[in-house]
């Protein structure tokens, strides 16, 4: 295992300390590093709190700040945070208008956030995100995973919270954006969890994992390494089919790197995805390219499409000032 770290047990703490020090103008770190919160809490605003296992940086702490989250709770690497973290965060950023938990659909996350919600004093709602089309959907299983689409929900709901929307409206908005957002990923190499010390899975020199999850979970199938065009086609085909997109729809196209893939390849995928969507008459009205929802050092990427109406577009464009996303201010 080759990583820029000291001891395996210090990785999370030292990384959080560096993050908090580097962005001290925007965030502060809670006691015992239970959460990262905004410096400024706005009275009367619904508090948006997310969190999840670490190893997906900049998700979620990188999205704490004006126009997005109020706090983020970092769990151990790939492990949901514990309820005391969410409770401490909720107390710290309470604006008197209730709390919305934004939770990726993994049972660990769902259960830990649920326990925190049960123990909370004020009004709490939870929004469960499940944008990964690689997993077959069904009501009697765990369902789909929450992956890169999370960023889009956090941005759009964050902008709505900033303008003063109430708890019920924010939950409804988030659910709608989630239902209009789909992602699929591909891994070219495995990630290595620091504490495990060796790769989570192994791929041959000519193989890729299509439909991989953001924890290096196996995907739909292991196949021969394909061209960027073939990869884009398979992923977008699944997404467009699942969203039942018709031509002339406007979408946000998000090309997300998993941590080990450089920007050059991500922009190439942005190009190939656009060309494919063009061919279907689907209009890319907004886009984002970069490694925002990562899986440690895994090489690969995910593509996400989110259907945009005028409201979603305006909320996406609204000013945001966080460590990882910043525009309009």
């Amino acid at each position, binding site marked *: 295992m080759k990583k820029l770290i000291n001891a395996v047990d210090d990785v999370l703490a030292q990384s959080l300390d560096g993050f908090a020090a580097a962005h001290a103008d925007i965030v502060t770190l809670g006691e015992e590093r239970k959460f990262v919160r905004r410096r400024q809490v706005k009275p009367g605003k619904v508090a948006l709190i997310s969190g999840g*296992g670490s190893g997906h940086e900049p998700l979620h702490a990188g999205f704490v700040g004006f126009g997005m989250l109020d706090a983020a709770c970092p*769990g151990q690497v790939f*492990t*949901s945070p*514990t309820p005391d973290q969410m409770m401490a965060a909720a107390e710290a950023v309470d604006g008197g208008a209730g709390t919305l938990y934004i939770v990726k659909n993994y*049972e660990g996350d769902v*259960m830990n956030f649920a326990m925190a919600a049960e123990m909370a004093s004020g009004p709490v709602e939870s929004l469960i995100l499940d944008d990964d089309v690689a997993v*077959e959907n069904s009501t009697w299983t765990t369902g789909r995973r929450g992956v890169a689409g999370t960023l889009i929900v956090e941005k759009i709901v964050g902008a709505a919270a900033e303008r003063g929307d109430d708890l019920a409206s924010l939950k409804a908005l988030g659910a709608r954006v989630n239902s209009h957002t789909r992602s699929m990923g591909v891994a070219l190499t495995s990630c290595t969890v620091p504490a495990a010390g060796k790769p989570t899975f192994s791929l041959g020199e000519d193989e890729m994992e299509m439909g991989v999850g953001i924890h290096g979970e196996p995907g739909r199938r292991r196949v021969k390494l394909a061209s960027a065009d073939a990869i884009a086609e398979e992923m977008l085909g699944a997404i467009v089919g699942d969203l039942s997109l018709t031509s002339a729809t406007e979408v946000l196209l998000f090309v997300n790197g998993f941590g080990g893939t450089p920007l050059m390849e991500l922009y190439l995928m942005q190009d190939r995805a656009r060309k494919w969507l063009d061919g279907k008459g689907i209009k890319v009205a907004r886009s984002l390219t970069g490694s925002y929802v990562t899986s440690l050092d895994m090489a690969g990427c995910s593509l996400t499409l989110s259907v945009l109406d005028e409201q979603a577009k305006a909320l996406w464009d609204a000013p945001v000032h966080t460590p990882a996303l910043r525009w309009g201010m």
Partner: protein
Amino acid sequence: MDSQAREQLIRAVAATIFQHSEELTALDQAIGDGDHGLNLKRGFEAVTAELPGLAEKSWPDLLKAAGMAMVMKVGGASGPLFGTFFMELGKTVGAEPDRAAVVAAFGKAVEAVKARGRSEAGQKTLLDVLVPVQAALAAGADAAAIKAEAIAAADKTVPMQAIRGRASFLGERSVGHMDPGARSSSLIIATVADELNKQGLMP
């Protein structure tokens, strides 16, 4: 059972988890995210850190405290599930439990786990160990039989297709691997059975 015996029991369970931590992580790497051994290790480190004070508490307080420590330290799916199991045991088992009280409390704890996980036996999870062990316990099985049941039940998760937990994302590809949570539950139950037997509390 005096506080010394209780401490010994807790330490034995923790030692089993520490010994098998890598095995559990390897099982979780195959069909999950490779942290189950680390998660439980962190949990039992938190529990043993409260010794010897913890062992001086009454059974209900001890179990609730241990469960709460798991909830607040483990995270992931296993934190709430194992935590809920121990907390619920603590809530219902009474200060001086006899076998009937243990059987009843175990049953309640299993129900609480099902509610927390919105899950049932047959879905390739730790419930596939807890449920048959509960049945054996209710049927009056001795320590050796309970241990054997637990270990066998974990083995039986190998051919199952996962319906809940991270492994469910794999669909058919989850078949052919043992569920890590089932394995860890079976190890804990086996250790408890051994210890109680050694201490002369279970035939």
